[in-house]
């Protein structure tokens, strides 16, 4: 074979069978290492900084002090909450990229309750109404595109995206109505003196309640998707609508029902932000988490447990990137470059999990 005049191609690509989980994670680990090496090279070449110092700083950004750890956990909790919310829709192959808008209207409903019901209802009742209102608001925001999809087969990606802008404008409108002081253009801390509508502090830690709530949602979502009849219907509709019809699943109903759930959970995430941590409302309060959640969910292949890790990874990188830009006086863009490289490698490694490259004569050695 080696004497042949025409050459065998340098490599060709073939599909792998199922890889055992440890091999798949091995590939992902190698990808992460390769990404770190490339990042080091770029850091040295572009900035002249010691890459190991940079990595230590990234790590310190998340774990440098107990406060930072709590901020990390809080950020993970909110991001994970939105990610969990969009996941049932994704499992149904309904591309809900309106998490942003659903979160915002949830936050808006929360702020409305805090502002309008303060002094009208006792504090615990304000909180109950607040929770229900935020879920309802998110659910409505999710249901509108779902109903249109079910009835007229509209494109859910565009529709949910557009709903985000509507939500942003709606919030902007109410901020002007509720602004404190007049003309400030912002709301400021709501009920700062009375703390009405603020979620209670548990165990002396400001963020602990959020973390607990999201952990419970995560487990519940895992069970719902994998073991409930609804979860099964979602999976069938997602795989093939024709199969779903064939066994008598009402596809329209499943789409609307699932989007109501998805929207309601986004609403809860908005409520946790406004009622649990920030106690204010701005148009950018979501910090694009509705979009980041898409990545969290995809990277974890729509598995709620896996999403704990992927949301950790993304928040960790974000916090680290912020930290190096301040410590080294580098601008934020450099940190974004590093984050981009790492994500590129991690997403790219999925290719090597599904496919393998066969190099020239490589097959013979495997034997």
């Amino acid at each position, binding site marked *: *074979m080696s004497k*042949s005049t*025409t*050459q*065998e*191609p340098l490599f*060709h690509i*073939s*599909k*792998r*069978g*199922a890889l055992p989980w440890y091999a798949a994670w091995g590939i992902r680990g190698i990808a992460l290492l390769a990404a770190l090496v490339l990042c080091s090279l770029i850091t040295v070449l572009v900035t002249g900084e010691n890459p190991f110092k940079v990595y230590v700083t990234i790590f310190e950004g998340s774990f440098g002090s107990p406060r930072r750890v709590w901020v990390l956990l809080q950020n993970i909790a909110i991001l994970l909450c939105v990610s969990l919310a969009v996941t049932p829709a994704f499992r149904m192959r309904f591309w809900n990229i309106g998490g942003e808008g659903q979160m915002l209207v949830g936050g808006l409903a929360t702020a409305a309750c805090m502002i309008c019901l303060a002094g009208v209802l006792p504090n615990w009742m304000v909180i109950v109404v607040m929770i229900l209102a935020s879920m309802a608001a998110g659910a409505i925001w999710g249901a509108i595109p779902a109903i249109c999809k079910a009835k007229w087969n509209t494109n859910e990606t565009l529709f949910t995206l557009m709903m985000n802008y509507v939500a942003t404008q709606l919030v902007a409108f109410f901020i002007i109505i509720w602004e404190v002081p007049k003309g400030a253009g912002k709301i400021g801390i709501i009920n700062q003196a009375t703390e009405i509508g603020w979620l209670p502090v548990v165990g002396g830690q400001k963020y602990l309640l959020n973390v607990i709530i999201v952990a419970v949602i995560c487990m519940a979502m895992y069970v719902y998707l994998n*073991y*409930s*009849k*609804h*979860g*099964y219907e979602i*999976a*069938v509709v997602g*795989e*093939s609508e*024709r*199969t779903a*019809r*064939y*066994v*008598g*699943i*009402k596809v329209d109903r499943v789409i609307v029902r699932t989007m109501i759930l998805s929207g309601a959970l986004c609403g809860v995430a908005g409520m946790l932000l406004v009622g649990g941590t920030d106690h204010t409302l701005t148009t950018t309060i979501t910090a694009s988490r509705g979009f980041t959640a898409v990545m969290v969910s995809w990277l974890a292949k729509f598995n709620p447990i896996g999403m704990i890790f992927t949301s950790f990874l993304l928040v960790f990188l974000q916090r680290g990137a912020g930290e190096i830009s301040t410590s080294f006086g580098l601008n934020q863009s450099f940190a974004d470059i590093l984050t981009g490289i790492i994500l590129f490698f991690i997403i790219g490694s999925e290719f090597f999990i599904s496919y393998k490259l*066969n190099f020239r004569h490589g*097959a*013979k050695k495997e034997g």
Partner: protein
Amino acid sequence: MENHAVAVEMRNITKRFGPILANDKTSLTIRRGEILALLGENGSGKTTLMNMLSGIYFPDEGEIRIDGKEVVIRSPKDAFALGIGMIHQHFKLVDVLSATENIVLGLSEKLDLEAAAKKIAKICETYGFDVDPKQKIYDMSVSQKQTVEIVKVLYRGADILILDEPTAVLTPQEADKLFAVLRNMRDDGKAIVIITHKMHEVESLSDRVAVLRHGQFVGELITAETNAQEMTNMMVGHATTLNIVRPEPVNPKPRVEVKGLTVRSEDGILKLDDVSFTAYSGEILGIAGISGSGQKELLEAIAGLQPAEKGSVCYVEDDGRREQLLGRDPLKIQEMGVALSFVPEDRLGMGLVGNMDLTDNMMLRSFRRGNSLFTDRKRPRKVAENVVHELEVSTPSIATPVRRLSGGNVQKVLVGREITSAPTVLLTAYAVRGLDINSSYIIYDLINRQKKQNVAVIYVGEDLDVLVELADRILVLCGGKVSGIVDGRATNKRELGLMMTRIGGGAHE
């Protein structure tokens, strides 16, 4: 057979897909001026082997020689340069372009449609093809599209042709026409390989037969010196019987009554036109027709998946009570207590969920059972184990996604689930399409067992040889109309073929 020059020699070809060995040191010789039939069960590596020859896959090991010279085939382009052309089961044509435009598509020569049309006309004349170079693809019948695919390959100068199950979509008359053309090409000195499951085609068309089993080359036979029985035994690896039994229906009673059923597709095209018939219990009613004559719509209308414009579909109980099925969805029909099972044509796109494992697929129809919010996987797991055991499904485990199974095993899983619910009506669409002989006979046997249990079976089929052996009565559809209902014991392939193309099958205009 005189000595023909060797065109292709494949030696010790090995190809793996992950842990699966598709070809294991397979060797094959293809000669000029000869039609070679490549035989083998599903998953025996026929198509993979041919895909390596036509540049779609690259072999892990082994060598390929064309006219005695070792070659490397990296891509379909390399294959064309060596004169190798493959006609796939699924046509790759652009609907809105004409035959000529499709044929020259992708060639780097100067675009001259006039000259190309002339060249095409010449090819057609040489081999007896019937193609209008100006006709658009969307205006063509399946057999015309196939002809365009063959001409496309010849236009590119192929003299080694590979056809993957070319007759799966053709009427017997069209298949005969194709065979005549293939014989012409053989006599012109071209090397032809045909992959097929139909024994009578192998016998009537090929000169030589090569048999693969589990990815390995088992042997070669001269067609004239062998018979279907011997070839099948070689393919399967042990002795088999090739008879379809047809027990007499016992005490048949009307079960499904279809009257004046008229169905239009979403674009308003008439798919079924005033179709009436009755299916009886304990009987197999065969449905024949050119593909797309309304078979799909008919079964789906009965199964509650296809709204109708007019007509009625009634389920008749033993005591004569009638229940209207039309306008009810599958869930309603199930809730009414009508045990109707449906094996659809699109197995992985409709009957099963490819990415789910056997257990989850078993519960597709039954997951709603019980008041619990949660699914019960214990029972489906048992059902899956039973189906795997009884129907000899070859699968690594019941936790394997069904899309990883071979075609025959996918169908066993689907049929297995559908008959587990003890149906009184069983609808099957192309139940053995793409299955090898062995799997096909298992399916025939399963269907016959249902018949003996007094199930009314409606069997849509494409292989007329099987229909005349299996069905008690055969309903022939032609363009959405009932062309006739004939006794399966008294009819023959010719008659059915004529009825498929002309209402009533009359030879006179």
